[in-house]
């Protein structure tokens, strides 16, 4: 298949050999699970259970709130021992609402968990509904509720489903290993997703540094028409949805738009696997595959881990640290986030735990920008990172926006190649956060103004109503008086009452 080139990008050392090819091990059930209620993009899930309640594996413990949200299920059987705040797997280290589960070790599935004999006989909407009920979110790290994306066929003219097996982040091998071991299940899940979307064509994009995964998926798709496996060139950020679609189709997603605008929906292979489990076995998303790797980890591994397991337990299982890590990251090194402390839990979107040595991070003190333009050459979005950074530093956020700040995908290619080691991504994230705060402040202001005007109108209306009521009462009183006067002086001039009414009306 003919591939198209994308602009920019970098070639970081992939360092995948640390954990590549290591079979997925199932992590033993830990003593406690801390299951955050906010593991997805969208509204926080609402807890359904109470303390001391016994739950079976796969039982729903929190339900979705709103259109973009996802339910959460018990990762194993056991007793709910806590329902409160627990540190989040987020750089801030702030606490989020978390359900704490004490496993009973039996790992007993809920009795109502059962699969569909022939899921391909289901209506597309029914497939999406089952995916929604299983709490499946994008497992590549974005954690967008998958069912919402499966419903895009209703609003967009779609032609292709792309399975994003590029795994372009260095170090990570979880998708690679899953594709090697579960290729048939992933293909089955992908075909179900294609049915939900109403598309005939499925493209598997896999970077060339994963020959085993390519071969496995190739073999698993051989029997199906309309499914194609594409060997992608190795380049970061090949896994960026819009850039992947451009590589495969040559079509460019319009700014601020979705790939669905050009007829393509992209899903991750681990998501396809979760869809397969949800449809074939009725099993909700309660575990995922994670690469625990990096130069500071003693024994890098690919683990299948229950959601809510403490990161400490994963590190323990990988024989702890070879040396004190300089940095502990959730996700890949290019876009991952620092882990605030080891007791935070694994979430649905956690695809890697990296313990990096100081040498691996390559950190140096920032120096002045020498305008070399490396960032411009590296930017896959055609931006001028150095100019934007200067504008942000000068506090001119509007100029940065007109330079394309909002088109930045935060991939970090610019900061990766910067010889001055400038923290460009941090600079842009700061600006985006500041703009979001300003937007919220502005919205609050307009809302306050609207409410104030509304109140003034309401008060005015009340006053008017009062005045009218008073006038009405006065009129009635006058009429009554006149009627009495008229009754007193029968035969007096008939024009007087009319004049009196007129007088009342004009005041």
């Amino acid at each position: 298949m003919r591939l198209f080139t994308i602009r920019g990008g970098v070639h970081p050392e992939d360092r995948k050999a640390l954990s590549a090819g290591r079979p997925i091990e199932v992590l033993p059930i830990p003593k406690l699970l801390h299951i955050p209620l906010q593991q997805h993009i969208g509204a926080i899930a609402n807890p359904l259970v109470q303390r001391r309640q016994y739950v079976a594996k796969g039982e729903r413990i929190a339900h979705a709130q709103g259109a973009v949200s996802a339910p959460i299920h018990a990762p194993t059987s056991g007793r709910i021992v806590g329902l409160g705040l627990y540190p989040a797997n987020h750089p801030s280290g702030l606490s989020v609402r978390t359900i704490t589960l004490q496993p009973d070790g039996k790992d007993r599935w809920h009795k109502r968990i059962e699969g569909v004999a022939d899921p391909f006989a289901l209506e597309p909407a029914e497939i999406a509904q089952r995916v929604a009920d299983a709490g499946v979110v994008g497992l590549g790290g974005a954690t967008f509720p998958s069912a919402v994306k499966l419903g895009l066929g209703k609003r967009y003219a779609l032609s292709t489903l792309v399975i994003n097996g590029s795994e372009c982040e260095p170090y990570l091998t979880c998708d690679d290993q899953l594709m090697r071991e579960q290729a048939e299940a992933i293909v089955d899940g992908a075909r179900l997703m294609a049915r939900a979307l109403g598309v005939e064509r499925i493209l598997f994009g896999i970077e060339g540094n994963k020959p085993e995964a390519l071969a496995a998926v190739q073999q698993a798709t051989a029997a199906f028409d309309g499914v194609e496996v594409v060997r992608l060139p190795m380049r970061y950020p090949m896994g960026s949805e819009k850039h992947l679609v451009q590589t495969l189709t040559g079509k460019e997603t319009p700014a601020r738009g979705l790939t669905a605008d050009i007829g393509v929906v992209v899903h991750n292979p681990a998501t396809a696997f979760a869809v397969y489990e949800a449809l074939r076995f009725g099993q909700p998303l309660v575990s995922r595959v994670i690469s625990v790797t990096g130069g500071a980890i003693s024994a890098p591994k690919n683990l299948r881990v229950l959601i809510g397991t403490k990161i400490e337990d994963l590190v323990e299982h990988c024989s702890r640290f070879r040396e004190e890590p300089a940095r502990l990251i959730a996700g890949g090194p290019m876009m991952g986030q620092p882990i605030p402390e080891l007791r935070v839990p694994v979430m649905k979107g956690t695809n890697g735990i990296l313990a990096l040595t100081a040498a691996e991070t390559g950190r140096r003190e920032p120096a002045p920008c020498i305008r070399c333009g490396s960032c411009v050459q590296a930017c896959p979005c055609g931006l001028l990172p150095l100019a934007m950074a200067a504008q942000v530093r000068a506090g001119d956020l509007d100029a940065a926006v007109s330079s394309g700040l909002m088109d930045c995908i935060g991939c970090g290619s610019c900061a990766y190649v910067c010889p001055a080691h400038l923290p460009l991504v941090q600079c842009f994230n700061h600006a985006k956060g500041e703009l979001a705060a300003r937007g919220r402040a502005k919205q609050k202001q307009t809302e306050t103004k609207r409410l104030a005007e509304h109140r003034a109108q309401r008060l005015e209306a009340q006053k008017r109503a009062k005045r009218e009521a008073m006038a009405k009462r006065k009129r009635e009183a006058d009429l009554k008086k006149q009627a009495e006067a008229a009754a007193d002086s029968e035969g007096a001039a008939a024009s007087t009452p009319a004049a009196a009414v007129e007088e009342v009306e004009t005041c």
Partner: protein
Amino acid sequence: MLAPTLVASPHAHAPVSIERTMRLVMLALLPATLLGLWQFGWPAIVLFAVTLGAALLFEALALLLAGKPLKPSLLDGSALLTGWLLALTLPPWAPWWIGVVGAFVAIIVGKQVFGGLGQNLFNPAMVARVVLLVSFPLEMTQWVGPQPLFFAQTPGLGDALTISLDGLSAPWDAMSGASILGQVDLALQQGSDLGAAMPTLFPPLGALFGGIPGSLGETSALLLLLGGLFLLRKGVIDWVIPVAVLLGVAVPASLLHLLDPTRFAGPLLHLLAGATLLTAFFIATDPVTSPVSRLGQAVFGAGIGLLIYLIRTFGAYPEGAAFAILLMNAATPMVDHYLKPRIFGRDRRGQALPVAGDAAGERKR
């Protein structure tokens, strides 16, 4: 256990730094520099050392005055490289104070006044060279033929100090003369047929390997080219600017040479002689003063090449590289403003691309 570190991604970095860039550029300049120092002997060595030392001294002075710490800036190699490049463009036997004044102009006026590394609009070494050329035309145009070290008739260290302190005097001034480009200019002014005069004036092999009169580091085209290719290989410079500069020189030179070979020298002279190669690979590629986008760099490089040729051929000076660089440096902000890359998902004017099958092109979700 770990202290919480609030660091932004990426958590990996390409093995690059400003120091590495400067180091590699100096490494690439080393062969041509060593050849120059050997060819022109002790006076050149004295001038080179004085210029580099003065550059470091002025950098330190400026940093002290600005209240900035000495350590990272002084050691990043940028001041050293500026001094180095300046020294390579000086006449090899120029007196010591030429190097000092040049270093002052380059570091203080050309760079630190603008705010230091990364802030200057003009290439500091070229600012210094132009100031020197305009202010001290005599000292800046006295070229000597190669007087390699370790030969009987070449000046020793003592003689070198005399040359450096007092300027060229008997018997050494007998060795001075014009550079090749100057000689070509002279021949044209005297009405010679360039086609006939060329073989004696311009030995291409000499220009390739060195051994011709010229600036300290500009005599061997081959070594400069090798240095440039090394930088390309190492990814320190991009190919766009060097190729554009060389084409900017070669294309007009070829055209006019074809039209009238008696009046216009061919492209080989313009490519190999003078500062063309040093400019193309080492000076025009200065990141600070060149545009950031590929297209901008192409325009910038081609402009420099064309200006070099025009100044050499039609201007008053036999060599125009420094002027060409400064003129295009001045154009860089404008080039950067107009020649930006196209943003993903947008057209050249910054409007979002239309959605197929949506005539209005503005779909609201």
